[in-house]
């Protein structure tokens, strides 16, 4: 089973790499979906089937689809690909890579502490998760639902036809 973990990890990393270096937005999105699916597999291997299902349904199935819809509306064509090639030259990668590597180094430094813990001893059933969610964390669930509501309203407001306030709107 551990081998599946490593294979998925490699797939996830490679897919993410291609995502950020791709010139075509749609292609990038699709590779990211691949990355998400790989992390779903990782979750499953680690004994969290509920999380794995969530990844596939919500993350890859809703959020990414939303992205894809928006990108379709923007309608990138050949012109966009040319533009991307222009904007992302080789020189641009130096500083960000450098900063990311430093950050990664700091992470790894912290992580390499003594003591070994192992993940994936046992499967954690969705029932347990559900009991936690609506037991301990009930308040947070309510708050998150409010956030989702706000997001909904925000998205609705932002996608109106024009953003300038007309005098007719002020009257009511």
């Amino acid at each position, binding site marked *: 089973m*551990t081998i599946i*973990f490593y294979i998925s990890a490699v797939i996830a990393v490679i897919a993410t790499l291609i995502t950020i270096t791709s010139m075509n937005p749609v292609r990038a999105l699709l590779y990211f979906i691949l990355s998400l699916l790989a992390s779903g597999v990782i979750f499953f291997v680690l004994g969290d089937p509920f999380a794995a299902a969530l990844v596939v349904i919500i993350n890859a199935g809703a*959020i990414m689809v939303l992205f894809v819809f928006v990108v379709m509306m923007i309608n990138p064509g050949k012109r966009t690909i040319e533009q991307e090639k222009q904007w992302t030259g080789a020189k641009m990668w130096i500083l960000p890579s450098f900063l*990311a590597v430093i950050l990664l180094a700091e992470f790894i430094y912290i992580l390499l502490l003594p003591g070994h813990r192992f993940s994936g001893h046992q499967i954690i059933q969705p029932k347990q998760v559900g009991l936690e969610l609506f037991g301990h964390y009930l308040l947070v669930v309510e708050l998150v639902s409010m956030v989702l509501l706000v*997001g909904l309203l925000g998205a609705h407001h932002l996608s109106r036809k024009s953003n300038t306030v007309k005098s007719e709107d002020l009257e009511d």
Partner: protein
Amino acid sequence: MAEINMQTGLILAGILFALGLTGVLVRRNIIFVLLSIEIMLNACGLAFIVIGSAMQEPDGQVMYFFILAIAAAEMAVGLGLVLNMFHKYKTLDTNMLNQMRG
């Protein structure tokens, strides 16, 4: 299931986070910037799951659930803003967003 070292999982999460960070800094198209932010969020979720599994608590998955919900709301609003920007500037160049100063 598999017995994976927690540190290995967390290193994986770190690598994915760094990749996402690089994407945010490098790309100029706002769609890609948002995408890279998604990558980072996903990496954080992975970290939570790994730790939760190591602790044998369901809290990791609960956290992942919340992160997902927040990410969804954020992406919805963000993409709405992207569409606004596209209508206004007719381009998706992040460098157009330079009014926040003074």
